[in-house]
């Protein structure tokens, strides 16, 4: 009896140890020691790019082989230009890369080397990537990998797919469309142009250049979704800018009918100073001293942003305005009119 009790106690003890060491409540029967099988041979398809440094652009980067005959996709930068770029394969072979095509809207470039029978990665749409998913990025960060050394690998968690307002070296970042945001640190020199892999080891994105988010002033770790890579390789033109251009008919300017308080040249909050009687603003119930804080969900920080946002509206469109009135938030719908 004594022995039995000891065994039972041991069993309970072992069970709790086993339960505690099962990380992240994975299903039983799961090996957790490595993502190596997921990365597979991806590193064999990643090349190192070298060129001349220009200004604050680093003279090195990463590219992904996308065909057995030596097509390499990478991000657009001064590194890949008409003078060509030096390409070093994972086996150490060196080639002169010829720039075949670029796409400024997608920030992508296609480079060709004269070689055959190479391993390559086929881009796979990132559409089923969900928050929390494991992602892995490969790249020539800080040009640590030399000669026949393979590039470096890091692992992180994917968060969200979102448009990103960003700057690059004090200029606006021209990419249009969504990016993939994750927490692996790829905002490093040389990382751009490397593949982002999902938990199946599929090539779901291309790591982008180092940029700073306008909303945080910090460097963002992101990738261009593979859909854009696929479309680029297929020769599709990039989508036009998502923001509609100013109305084609210059005589039909959008009109709301509020005058904002302005203090000289200073950026001031969008306080309503006057509402024209009978105007769309008056119809919607906007009042003097309201503060316009958002139009169609987009935040309005100051009078200039208000002007820019209104210029984008189309006459006849019904747009939600978010106002601060005293300590209240008031939502109104403005039917945009035509400037008299």
């Amino acid at each position, binding site marked *: 009896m004594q022995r039995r009790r000891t065994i039972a106690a041991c*069993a309970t003890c*072992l069970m709790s140890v086993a339960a505690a060491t099962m990380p992240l409540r994975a299903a*039983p029967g799961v090996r957790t020691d*490595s993502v190596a099988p997921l990365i597979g041979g991806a590193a064999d398809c990643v090349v190192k790019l070298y060129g001349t440094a220009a200004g604050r652009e680093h003279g090195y980067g990463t590219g992904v082989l996308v065909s057995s005959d030596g097509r390499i996709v990478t991000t657009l930068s001064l590194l890949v230009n008409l003078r060509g770029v030096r390409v070093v394969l994972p086996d150490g072979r060196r080639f002169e890369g010829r720039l075949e095509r670029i796409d400024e809207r997608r920030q992508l470039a296609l480079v060709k080397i004269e070689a055959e029978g190479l391993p390559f990665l086929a881009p796979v749409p990132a559409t089923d990537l969900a928050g929390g998913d494991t992602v892995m990025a490969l790249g020539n960060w800080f040009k640590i990998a030399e000669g026949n050394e393979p590039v470096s690998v890091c692992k992180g968690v994917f*968060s969200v797919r979102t448009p990103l307002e960003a700057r690059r070296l004090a200029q606006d970042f021209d990419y249009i469309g969504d990016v993939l945001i994750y*927490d692996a640190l790829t905002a490093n020199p040389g990382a751009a142009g490397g593949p982002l892999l999902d938990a199946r080891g599929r090539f779901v994105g291309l790591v982008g250049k180092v940029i700073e988010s306008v909303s945080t002033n*910090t460097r963002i770790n992101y990738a261009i979704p593979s859909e854009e890579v696929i479309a680029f390789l297929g020769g599709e033109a990039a989508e036009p800018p998502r923001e509609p251009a100013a109305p084609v008919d210059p005589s039909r300017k959008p009109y709301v009918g509020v005058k904002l308080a302005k203090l000289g040249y200073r950026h001031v909050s969008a306080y309503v100073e006057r509402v024209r009687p009978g105007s769309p603003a008056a119809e919607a119930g906007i009042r003097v001293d309201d503060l316009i804080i958002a139009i169609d969900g987009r*935040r309005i920080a100051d009078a200039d942003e208000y002007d820019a946002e209104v210029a984008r509206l189309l006459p006849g469109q019904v747009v939600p305005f978010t106002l*601060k009135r005293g300590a209240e938030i008031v939502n109104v719908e403005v039917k945009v009119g035509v400037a008299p």
Partner: protein
Amino acid sequence: MTHANLHRCLAWVLALFACGARPSGTCAADVAEEARQFEVAKARAIRNAVAAIAPSMVTIETVGGAQPVRQGMRGPVEESFRVADGPTTGLLLSNDGLILASSFNFARDPSIITVRLSDGRRFVATLLARDQIRRLALLRIEAENLSAARWVPAGEIQVGQYSIACGHGLGASQPFASLGIVSAVGRRNGIAIQTDAKTSPINYGGPLIDLDGRVLGLIVPIAGAGGGALAGVGWYDSGIGFAIPRDRVDDVLSRLRKGENIEPGKIGVVLAPLEEDPLDEMFRDLFPSTRGVRIAALARPSPAERAELQAGDIILELEGRPISDVAELQRKLSDRAAGEKIVLKVKRRWRTLDVAVLLAAPKDIGPFDTPEEEEEAGADDAELPPGDDDSNQPTTQPEGD
């Protein structure tokens, strides 16, 4: 216990052990599938945790305000960081509209603060108070029936447990979430836990959560002791992030609710190391615990003056703990707030005294006495050596403590 029960029990144990020990002959495809299954399970765990906290997270938008002013030419380098437009993150602390965020999010002193709940409703928020030590801010919105976050009791937080740093700073539809572990507890004189999850303006003010979606701490930038409104932001995404656990929030919550800002508390003295006097050294050899820190000069008015401390006094202990050098005393005082009382053991000539000092904010402390010739040298010595972990404390200023 019957045999049948025992057998069932052992079968369980064996089944659980089988998880870890697979036969080595498994083929590559199986290994890849197992590795993928694990990542899938992990992703699901993260998603569930984030989904559990999401209704308690708010997006903070601000209008107006200016960049914080860099304090003097020798201010900390972080203050060259320019605060962006946001949005930033906050956390529902109560069901009736109390919101906890980071003071970093309000470094620009915005004129208007609005808060967007996870259901899209917007409210005007009032900033009740800031804690410059824990880098917290408390806001209130006029709303009810909100989903206050669930917290992990501080005593249950373990180094090594998974942690997820969540934030709305990208303004995206879903929160940003970075996975890491708890790297340390009781950091910065016990006010913070440390994580290697990526923290940045994207999630300052947001929750660091466990896999159940419970809050381990509120994510804040903290670098060294003291520092300006932006100290610590230079460490963003570095793998060294900080969060304030619930008990350390509760320490100051009632004061913050009353609208009291919490500022670093100072004594109002210039500190200097003990002179290397042969007699002193002999004394120290005899009584190793009697090292201390000399008061080189007093500010007037100041807490030191009110407590009748004198230039030349040697501080031996703080709250019953011996003090061996200036850096140690500064570090131990760095999380004390104005309005708190501390007890110093002080040696004055041949006497030792216990002196209670009510700490005051730097703005309530007057100019320093001009130290005498020899003491002036001592005041300069009060500077910490470069590279000390408190190096972004403005130690070059005599009002250091």
